[in-house]
Each structure stands twice: as C-alpha cells, then as structure tokens.
C-alpha cells in the first residue's frame, strides 16, 4: 500500500465515521434515508452545496472530501471559509464575497471556478460560520494543498504549517511529498517534520534516529516536541522509556539551547548596533558643530526634528510614492536643516564665539522657539511617517534569528553618512579649510581662508547632517515637537565620551554605548540601563575629561 492510498483510507474512514454520527442532523430538509454519506459524494459542487446546513464536524468532513475530489481547485473555497468570506445567498448558492460592491452590496464569486457572479445585497447573505477546531483543520488541509504548489516558498510555508499541527493526515501528506520534492530546503523541512512524527514511533531505534536528526534544529515546534519527549509524565518518571533516546534527546535539547543562546546574543548585539547607529546619527552633526567648531548647539535636536518633519511633509506631498518621497526627503532635509543652521550661525552664534556658555543659552532658547513653531504649524500631536515598502518586514536568517529591515538599513545608512562626512572633511577643499580654521583660525585667515564663510558652511554642514539623521529617526520613532529634546542629552554624551573633535571617536562611542545599553537591558530594564549608562559617563568624564580619543597638539588647548 502506498503512502497516499493509506492516507486516503484513513481520511475516508474518518469522514465516514463523522458522517455516521452527525449526517442525519445535517441533512434535515431532505429525508434522512436518501442522504448519502459525505464520503460517498465526489462531485465538488454537491459537496459545497451541503456546506451551509452542515454542523462544524460535518463541515470538516466536507472540506476533507473536497480536497480529496477537487484537489487544488478546492483551495479558494476553503481559504474563503477560513477567512469568513464564504456565504450562502438567497438562492442557496454558496458564494465567495469578494470585496465591496456599490453601497450595501458586495461582489460575489464562484468558490470553485472563480467566475464572477455579480453582486448581492449583503443583508441577503448568510455567513457560513466556522469554529476554532474547524479553522485548525482547514489550515491543515490548505497546507496539504500547498504542498503540491509550484512555488517552493509556498511549499516550505505549507510544510511549516503542517509541522505546527502534526496529525495523521498531515504526516501522511508529508511522507507522500518527501520523495517527489525537488527543492532541497523543502525536503529538509519535510525531513524535520517526519522526524518529529517519528518521535511518537513505537520503535526505540526510529525514535533515536529522529532525535538525532532533530539535534540542532531551531524551530520552536521541534523544541517543544523534544521537550515533551523528555518531560515527566506526572509520576516522576520521564515519558520516554528508552535510556539511549533519553540521553540523545537531552543532548539535542542542550545543543538547541546553546544555539538559541548564541543567536539570542547575536540578536542583542544587532539591537545594540542599531541603537548605536541611531546614537551616532544623532550625534555626528553635533560632532561637527561642537567638536570641530566648539559651538554648543542646544538646538541640534530641533534640527533633527526639522529633518523628521521634512520627511513627513514630503510624504504628504507625494502620498502615492512613499518610497520616493522618503528617499527625496534625505536631500531635502539636508537643505532645510542646513539652511536653518546657516541662519542660526549668521543670526546668533557668530556674535557669541568665545563665550560657550552664552551660546548654550541662546541656542537653547532657539530650540524652544523651534519647538513651539512646529507645535503651532503642525499641531502638538505626533505625526505618523510611513515606512517605505523595502524597509518593512525582516530578514529571516533562521527560526531563532530574524533582523528587521528598518534597523538593518539604519546601520547601513549611518555608515554611509559617516563615510560621506569623512570624505567631505578629508578629501574636499571645503573640508581642508574647515580643518584649518578649527586648528588655527588666525593662520588660516593669513593663508586667505575666509573664516567667516567657513564657519557658516561648517555649521550648515553639521546642521544638515542633523536633518538627515532626523529623516532616519522618523522611521523609528514618533515624529513630534519633543523628538529633538529626547535625543539632545544622549548626543552630547556620545560626543563628549568619544572625544570632542573626533569623528571616529563619535562612531566608536555611539556604537559602544548602544551595545552596552542593550546588553544591560535584559538584566536591569530599559530605564535602569539608561541611568547606569549616564552614571558611567559622568564617572568616565571625571577620569578622562577629554573623552576616549582626545585631540592632541595645539588644537586641544583652549
């Protein structure tokens, strides 16, 4: 007997049993004697027609019979039933509701052929209900249908679905598919599924082989299956009688635990790096204005806020093209925040050079004005900035580790911004002049550098970068008037920790602070981690007042 025919027999036997128990109740309208058992019906249309009046158990039998007789064609009907879109209309036809029609009407579709059936008033339709048990069975059936799908990804999803609910028909389906499967990934998944099934085998050798096969698999279903194998059965004895299998299973669980811990560590590291990237992004503009120019710009956070609002405005202007709007927002934010920065430098900061504490106060006042401005223009409520398509979802590496795309992109984006800044400072004539002015203003002027112009340009550059960081932040947090305030202290800390005037220092300090706080978080909670980092920084500055990478030479003095 081949696997598939065995499966069919099991199915039939089950369906027949069900039909015998509840069949008469389901066919109340017709005379009970004439109603054939569900397992005897092979015409898909007839089977469907029996659905509306059937009990839940009968519906399950009908669904199984449908798969049996119609194969993949039954898929849409079952899916509709699962999603609550299968209705019976006034003429006792079974229909799939397919989207909204005009007014109170809805568009209808034939469940088997998929042909459009016009529309009907939604009031005239009766929903064909389902319960949890039926939905579970439907998912299993659909997974079995998908097992034969042409798309390997769909087959893989189907195998994983079957693994979640591993009953006899599902095992049989997997076994049937095993040899026909060409895709190695899907075959591996099927092997895992069959091994899980084999854990329940009577033969200790089969179980042992299954346990060995499962060692190192990260899926939570496998883990649960192994756990239940070695679990106590309530009387102090473990469920698995065979000593060898027990040992192997313990070893397998241990190995899985280790691997999970490893991947958990990788994930924490990743979270830390992405938090670090956010910190670096928010601090790097400051590293220029504060680090290179020595200007305390307390309105730095508000320049980021301007960048974030630029992203919001761009998306409002181009609601059809979110991705393009977000990408365009990057240069736009640079321009907007950069222009604001130049205005600040020309209007306020330039009168206060050499008086850092006064600069701090004036720019702080400015930050209040900018906040209130945004509140008056955009409302005090948070605005939502949508995430472009390519940034949503996550990169699944295995069952224990998946990295969300937006965090991944933030890391890349940060590196890009950092690189671009390095290039500007080290490879362009503007960068050369900026460095010259910051190292020795008088000498630079003597060489013909227009230091006033360079000051404005440097401040604009730092502010523009802050705006670009704001676009990145708009993808991670709420965009509101307080956006900047919540980052300003952190960004100053990053710059001071890294060593004023050192872009590399900013990169390393931001990254390490991000990783450290994410490493602390599981043990202390998020707020406590933040407090500990702050206290650490306060103590660190006492030890090394000039940060991790202090500037050397004459530029360091003063």
């Amino acid at each position, binding site marked *: 007997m081949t696997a598939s025919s065995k499966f069919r027999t099991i199915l039939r036997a089950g369906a027949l049993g069900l039909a015998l128990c509840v069949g008469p109740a389901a066919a109340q309208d017709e005379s009970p004697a004439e109603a054939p058992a569900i397992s005897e019906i092979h015409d898909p249309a007839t089977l469907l027609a029996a659905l509306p009046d059937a009990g839940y158990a009968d519906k399950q039998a009908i669904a199984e019979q449908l798969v049996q007789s119609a194969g993949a064609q039954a898929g849409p009907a079952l899916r509709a039933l699962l999603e609550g879109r299968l209705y019976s209309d006034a003429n006792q036809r079974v229909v799939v509701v397919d989207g909204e029609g005009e007014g109170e009407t809805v568009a209808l579709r034939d469940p088997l052929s998929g042909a459009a059936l016009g529309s009907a008033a939604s009031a005239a339709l009766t929903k064909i209900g389902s319960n949890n048990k039926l939905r579970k069975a439907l998912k299993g059936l659909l997974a079995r249908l998908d097992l034969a799908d042409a798309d390997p990804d769909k087959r893989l999803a189907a195998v994983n679905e079957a693994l979640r609910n591993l009953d006899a028909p599902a095992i049989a389906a997997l076994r049937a598919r095993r040899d026909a499967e060409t895709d190695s990934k899907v075959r591996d998944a099927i092997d895992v599924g069959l091994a899980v099934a084999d854990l329940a085998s009577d033969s200790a050798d089969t179980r042992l082989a299954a346990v060995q096969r499962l060692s190192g698999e990260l899926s939570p279903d496998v883990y649960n299956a192994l756990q239940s194998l070695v679990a106590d059965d309530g009387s102090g004895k473990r469920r698995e009688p065979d000593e060898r299998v027990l040992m192997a299973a313990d070893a397998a669980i241990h190995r899985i635990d280790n691997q999970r811990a490893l991947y958990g560590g990788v994930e924490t590291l990743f979270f830390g790096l992405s938090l670090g990237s956010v910190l670096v992004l928010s601090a790097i503009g400051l590293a220029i204005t504060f680090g290179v120019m020595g200007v*305390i710009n307390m309105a730095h956070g508000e320049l980021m806020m301007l960048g974030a609002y630029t992203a919001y405005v761009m998306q409002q202007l181009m609601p059809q093209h979110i991705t393009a709007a977000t990408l365009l927002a990057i240069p736009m934010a640079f321009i907007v925040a950069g222009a604001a920065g130049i205005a600040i430098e020309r209007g306020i900061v330039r009168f*206060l050079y050499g008086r850092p504490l*006064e600069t701090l106060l004036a720019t702080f006042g400015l930050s209040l004005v900018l906040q209130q401005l945004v509140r008056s223009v955009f409302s005090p409520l948070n605005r939502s900035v949508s995430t472009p398509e390519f940034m949503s979802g996550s990169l699944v590496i295995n069952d224990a580790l998946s990295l969300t795309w937006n965090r991944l992109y933030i890391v890349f984006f940060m590196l890009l911004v950092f690189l671009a800044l390095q290039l500007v400072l080290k490879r362009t004539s503007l960068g050369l002049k900026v460095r010259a002015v910051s190292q020795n203003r008088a000498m630079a002027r003597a060489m013909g550098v227009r230091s006033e112009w360079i000051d404005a340009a440097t401040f604009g550059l730092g502010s523009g970068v802050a705006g670009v960081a704001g676009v990145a932040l708009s993808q991670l947090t709420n965009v509101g008037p307080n956006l900047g305030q919540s980052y300003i*202290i952190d960004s100053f*800390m990053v710059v*001071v920790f890294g060593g004023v005037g050192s872009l590399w220092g900013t990169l390393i300090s931001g990254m390490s602070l991000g990783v450290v706080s994410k490493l602390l978080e599981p043990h202390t909670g998020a707020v406590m981690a933040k407090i500990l980092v*702050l206290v650490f920084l*306060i103590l660190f500055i006492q030890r090394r007042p000039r940060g991790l990478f202090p500037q050397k030479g004459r530029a360091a003095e003063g």
Partner: protein
Amino acid sequence: MNHSLLRLLWAERGSRAFYIVLLLAAVFVPLLNLGVADGSALHVPTYTVALLGKYMCYALLAIAVDLVWGYCGILSLGHTAFFALGGYAMGMYLMRQIGARGVYGDALLPDFMVFLNWKELPWFWHGMDMFWFAMLMMLFVPGLLAYAFGWFAFRSRVTGVYLSIITQALTYALLLAFFRNEMGFGGNNGLTDFKDLLGFDLQSSGVRIALFLASAIALGLAYAACRAVIASRLGRVIEAVRDAESRARFIGYRVENVKLWVWVFSALLAAVAGALYVPQVGIINPSEFAPINAIEIVVWVAVGGRGTLYGAALGALLVNYAKTYFTAALPEVWLFALGGLFVGVTLFLPKGIVGLIAQWQTRLTKAASLKEASA
C-alpha cells in the same frame, strides 16, 4: 553687632533695595491678606500669597545658581536635582503626616505603596515622620550628592561646558530614576495629597502666611549669607577662580576645595528652596528634575543680571510672573517669549536688567555732569 559686617551687607544700592522690598512684602502681604476684608480692593487673596511664596522659593533657587555661576563661573544645569531632592525630603515628611487619612487608610504606608501592593515601608522612609529628621535629610542628601559630584568633578578639573553637560546628565539620570515605581517615591505621580505640616492644616490661610513668611525669611537669610561669603576673603578667592583659574592655582590656592565649598553651599540653598516650595504647591513629582527647568533657572539669573544676587532674585520674579501671566492668557506665545528672552538677553543684555539700569544711571549722571560743566 559687628559694624563692618552690617556695612558690608548694606554696601550696595541693589542690596538695600532687595532688603527693603523683601521686608515690605513680608509685612504687607500678610497684613493685606488677614487684616483687610475679602471684598476690599486692597485684599490680597490667599492664592496670591501662595503664588508669591512660590516666587520667593524660585528667587532663593536663582540666588543659589547665581552664587556658583555668577561668582565662581560654574554653569550648573543640574540645580534642579538639589531643589527636587530637598522637595522630596519635605514631601516624604508630609506624606507620612497623612497617616490613616489616605484613600486606603493605611496608618503606615502612603497610598501609592498600598496601591503597588507593598507590605512594608522601604528603609529610607523610616524616620521621615519626624520633622527634625526629615529636615536633616533634606539638607544631608542633596549636600552629600553635591559633595560627591563636586569632589569628583573639581578634582579631575572638569570645567566649562563639559561640567555643564554632566550636571545636566546628573539631573536627567535622577529624573529617569524617580520615574520608576520601584524607587519608592511614587513614580510618575510623585508625592501629593498632603494634609498638614507640624499638625497645622496646609489649606488654612494661616499656614499659607506662615509658609510665605518662612520663605521670605529664608530668602533674606540666604541673601545675607551669600553676601557675607562674597565679601569675605573666601569670596575674593572665589572670584579669582572665576576670572583666572590657573593663576589662582599657581598662587597656591586649592581651587578644587574652593569650588567644592561654594558648590555644596549652593546645593544646600537649592534644597531649602525645594523644601519650602513643596508644601506651597502641594505636590512634588519627577518632572521637577527635568533638565529644561534647570536651564530655565539659568535664564532667570541671566535676565536679572548675573553676579549680583539681587539681579537673580529680580529675574526669577519677573520671568515667573511673565510665565504665570502668559501660560494663562496666551499659552501659545509663552515658549516663543521664553525662547526669545534667552536669545535676546544673551545677545543684547549680557549683564541683564540690572546691568541695563546701571547703564542708564551712568548715562544720566554723565549727562548731568556735562550740563554742570557747560553751565
């Protein structure tokens, strides 16, 4: 009384004006509140008394900041930490005075602890039901924090902007910590619903007046103490440290000790201001730690005129009066006005209002002398 000390306290015209205004307020406000009938135009409502008492606390806080910033050159963006810690000490005492009259009627535990299902009083709440002990803690805890922080910071010669930023980090860390329920200070909501102080009902106008007078006396004493410090030999050194730190060190002064002394003294003044503030506003919560409040204090000082003490008090009074008025009448405008004040004062009034007045005076006298000369 030592004549030279008296002369020293009266020396400046600004100081004399400060004492006179304070004395007039301390005499007339209670008189007009209690002595004049309710409907009369001269009547000062109890609400105003409490408001003025609050301003007095702010003025005290501003003087504390002016002492370290104006005279010693340490721009503290963390004085709210000491202010709020002092306030919390007073709040804890007031909380314990509620006793069984709380919502849950627990004789020992404050309401929020019952709510959090705590079974016993945390160790740091013991003894806070005794007024003398609570007041001791009110001085001891902020003083110790200031001492520890200053000891580290001044010895390792953290100065200027760096110091400002780590003081800001200090108060920010405390803000975050006090937001946590686990800290045992009421978390987000802080401490409130106070009933009485030393057995007197906090709502009665008599207690309001008493608190107002206490604030006025504290302000006067603190002012006199600061003046005495500044006029002393130590004061000379303090100003020397502000103007030329390295030179003062080379001459042989222990700069870090001088700074530490002023810093702790200033923190204690801030703590007293916080302790007087809490019973008058009836609540203390973690938002008092907010770094933005600390910067606001600096602005009061800058607006009034730093390095004069009376200027700081004047600035605190004016800015807070403007805040009270604007937040009620034109809430939208307040942040614009405050922000504009920051920018305008730093750009155009580096010496504050007091400096402006002095400028006018010299101009007037100059004009007068010119007239005399030509006549």
